[in-house]
């Protein structure tokens, strides 16, 4: 029987939950001997939406896009460092667009077997369900999805990893 999980991808958005997800993905990749990918999506759709609603000025859109690009590099580097500490390499990917659509596309493009996401905020309304990007990624990803919950336990697992 071939290994069911050969490629794992974690989605990182800079939140503490997504960093915990990255740690869990590292633990899993190490345990399963899987290849690890980390993805950050620069949410240009939200930026465009903010200009359309006139909350952002055009110049502000450019400024925040640069900020997001900086965040992408910073957080992907952080995941790379977390993996390196445990003797694992990670392939980092950055894309831009609508978050859940980019995640879905990257899963297909890379042939990902398991998508790891950070804990999802409590959904309090139908609108949350429609707009929460992590929630949408979970529902639309064309592969098994694991939601990493329990930051303390994940931290212990990561720390205990040889």
């Amino acid at each position: 029987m071939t290994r069911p999980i050969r490629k794992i991808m974690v989605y990182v958005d800079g939140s503490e939950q997504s960093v915990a997800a990255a740690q869990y993905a590292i633990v899993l990749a190490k345990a399963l001997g899987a290849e690890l990918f980390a993805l950050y999506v620069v949410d240009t759709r939200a930026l465009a939406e903010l200009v359309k609603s006139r909350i952002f000025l055009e110049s502000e859109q450019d400024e925040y896009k640069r900020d997001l690009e900086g965040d992408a590099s910073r957080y992907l580097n952080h995941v790379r460092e977390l993996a390196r500490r445990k003797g694992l390499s990670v392939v980092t990917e950055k894309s831009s667009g609508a978050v859940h659509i980019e995640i879905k596309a990257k899963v297909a493009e890379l042939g990902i077997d398991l998508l790891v996401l950070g804990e999802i905020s409590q959904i309090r309304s139908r609108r949350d369900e429609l707009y929460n990007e992590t929630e949408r990624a979970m529902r639309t990803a064309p592969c098994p999805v694991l939601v990493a919950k329990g930051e303390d336990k994940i931290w212990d697992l990561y720390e205990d990893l040889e």
Partner: protein
Amino acid sequence: MALIDLIEETVVRAPLKGTDKNSVIRELVDALAAAGKILDAETAYLAVLDREAKGSTGLEEGIAVPHGKTISARQLTIAIGVSSDGVEFGSMDGKPAKLLFLILAPPDKAGPHIEALAEIARMSRSKAFCASLAACRSPAEVVSLFKDE
């Protein structure tokens, strides 16, 4: 992080006491400082004024979304203000702002900042919800409305 996770009574001013744009912004910034959400009110206040100087964040239908990046905020934070009479905010439709969402974020947290602003942008399209919020007369009513939504 969902917007509702950031909203608590200590960061809501309903009704606002201020009667002009700068004073209501200051009132909300001070609310965040009093709630321990930001380190320095003056720095945060100036960051919001700096952004407003580039163009008003007064939208339509009495909604304003003043915001800024500041090292004074350790993480994304929001304050909500309700003004019974409305405050002149240089809004697109010329209407006074009755509902204010003030958002502050550290410079290295652009993602959550944008996510929160986008959530407000979507919420502002719900005229019924915004009208209900603008009619709130206490912080408890505002928080309750968000939780019931």
